[in-house]
């Protein structure tokens, strides 16, 4: 569906993409993960033909540079920030139906499936709709156009937590048969949507593979929070520290948090159960993207030194 070879983009003296080679197969859901400035949005702009670039780039078999129109016909796009259209929801839907030659009833049905009623909200000016509703509208328009490829550029970045969960749920349930390229800096979005991820760092692919493979590659620790009765907390902490050689890093009321490898989480909790510790609750926190990138880059440096 996407084939890039030596894709490079430079703004002045700053190289934003540095000769990317990437393939996304039809039906795959790929997340492009990276910190701000990693090149995610530039990659999407290249795919849409919105900016010039060097190298080769094809979408659905069409060369983006030579056959941009045909390539864009295969793409449905949801930007980070919903465009500030002027008009009612009905006006906007009608315009894009005419532009893409879509059946208006089909679009309305698609929006209903995403939980957005044109009948109820159609006469509202789009600027009065929530960010979540607007993003769903754009997703609905893309899905109704029967596009092969959904390009999502940090679509949840400006949504609050409930709206984010709702958007991701809608995406999972309605885009099952589409190829998805999701640019994001949220690990939670990656885990919710993607089969595979590409980690971009300073315009280069720092990692390509599955999420689990990324954890394996970097050995990134999670924070495991364990909540026990307040009067047992110190004892349990001591037990965990001695038996598992883990030091408590955080405390919050009757809960304490420890940094632990993801794969050792079940062992630790199983051990506490065997010891008769009453675990009232537990939850995990993924490392921040920043921590993950640091660990990934450190792992790459170590691998390169070993190879030498």
């Amino acid at each position, binding site marked *: 569906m996407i084939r890039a070879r030596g894709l490079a983009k430079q703004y002045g003296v700053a190289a934003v993409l540095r000769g990317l080679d990437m393939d996304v197969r039809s039906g795959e859901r790929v997340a492009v993960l990276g910190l701000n400035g990693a090149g995610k949005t530039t990659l999407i702009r290249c795919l849409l033909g*919105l*900016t010039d670039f060097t190298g080769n780039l094809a979408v659905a078999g069409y060369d983006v540079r030579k056959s941009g*129109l045909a390539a864009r016909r295969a793409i449905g*796009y949801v*930007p980070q920030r919903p*465009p*500030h259209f002027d008009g009612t929801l009905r006006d906007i839907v009608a315009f894009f139906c005419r532009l893409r030659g879509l059946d208006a009833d089909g679009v309305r049905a698609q929006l209903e499936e995403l939980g957005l009623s044109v009948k109820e909200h159609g006469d509202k000016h789009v600027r009065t709709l929530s960010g979540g509703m607007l993003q769903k509208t754009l997703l609905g328009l893309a899905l109704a156009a029967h596009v092969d490829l959904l390009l999502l550029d940090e679509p949840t970045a400006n949504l609050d937590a409930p709206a984010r969960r709702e958007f991701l749920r809608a995406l999972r349930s309605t885009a099952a048969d589409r190829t998805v390229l999701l640019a994001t800096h949220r690990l939670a979005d990656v885990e919710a949507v993607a089969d595979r991820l590409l980690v971009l760092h300073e315009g280069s692919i720092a990692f390509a593979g599955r999420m689990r493979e990324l954890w394996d590659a970097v050995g990134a620790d999670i924070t495991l929070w364990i909540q026990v009765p307040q009067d047992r907390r110190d004892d349990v902490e001591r037990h965990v520290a001695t038996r598992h050689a883990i030091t408590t890093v955080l405390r919050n009321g009757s809960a304490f948090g420890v940094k632990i490898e993801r794969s050792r989480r079940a062992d630790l909790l199983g051990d506490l159960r065997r010891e008769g510790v009453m675990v009232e609750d537990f939850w995990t926190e993924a490392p921040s993207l920043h921590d993950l990138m640091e660990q990934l880059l450190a792992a790459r440096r170590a691998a390169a030194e070993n190879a030498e």
Partner: protein
Amino acid sequence: MTGARAALFVRRELAAALHARWFIVYAALFLIAGVLLAAFGMGNTMIYGYRGFAKAFAGLVHLALFLVPLMALFPSAASVADERESGVLEYLLAQPVSFGEVYAGKWGGINVAMLLALTIGFGAAGAVAVMRGVPPAFVLAAYGFVLLLATAFVAVGLLLSSVAASRARALTFGVVLWFLLIALGTLGVMVASIRWGIPERVLLVWSFVNPIEAFRVGVMSVLDPDLSLLGPIGIRLVGRLGSTGTAALAALSLAVWSVIPGLIGLRLFRSHV
């Protein structure tokens, strides 16, 4: 480029322009001032005859000279920059449309909006003028020049909008340009001529390079065959090129202004999304 998609963008832009408050205000101002000028400014045409109505009609032409460029600059200078700022432009261009279709739609839509507003405004004033004795052919010639002036400034506005970083900057550039072109019209040319002794040939060329001056010279050479309204530069021009030649060259200048900035704007539009 398909006509259907471009027409869709023309309709969209036209609707946006006709809903804009500024556009309605300018169009109404042009209509009211034009009709008042035509009705009351031509009171003496019967007394002074041909020369009288030419002078009176010149008031209407000068009203157009000041207002029409602004009317055209406001929607066109805002057009691209506004949608770039709001994220609409990027989303539109992410659809299966070409840059040319979007740009042509903007160009066409704003021009159609201008055509409607000027036809109503100038048409009403022109009708009053004809009723007061101005020959219809003169009104039609002036109307043609007004449309050319509007088209030229739509193209200039789109060029500014394509390169400006924001809507506010595009509008500021537009107003500053309008002011400079007005200031460097007849008055500026005369001052420059006296102060710095600029060669006559340069001043004559400038009359066609400055679109506002080209409009004035062109329409006055048609309206005022005895040249009293043209000023010294205009008189030299008519002396060299004749009345028809001056009008034709002025029209050509405005036509060039209608095309070249538009094409440059399209080229820059592609690289400034």
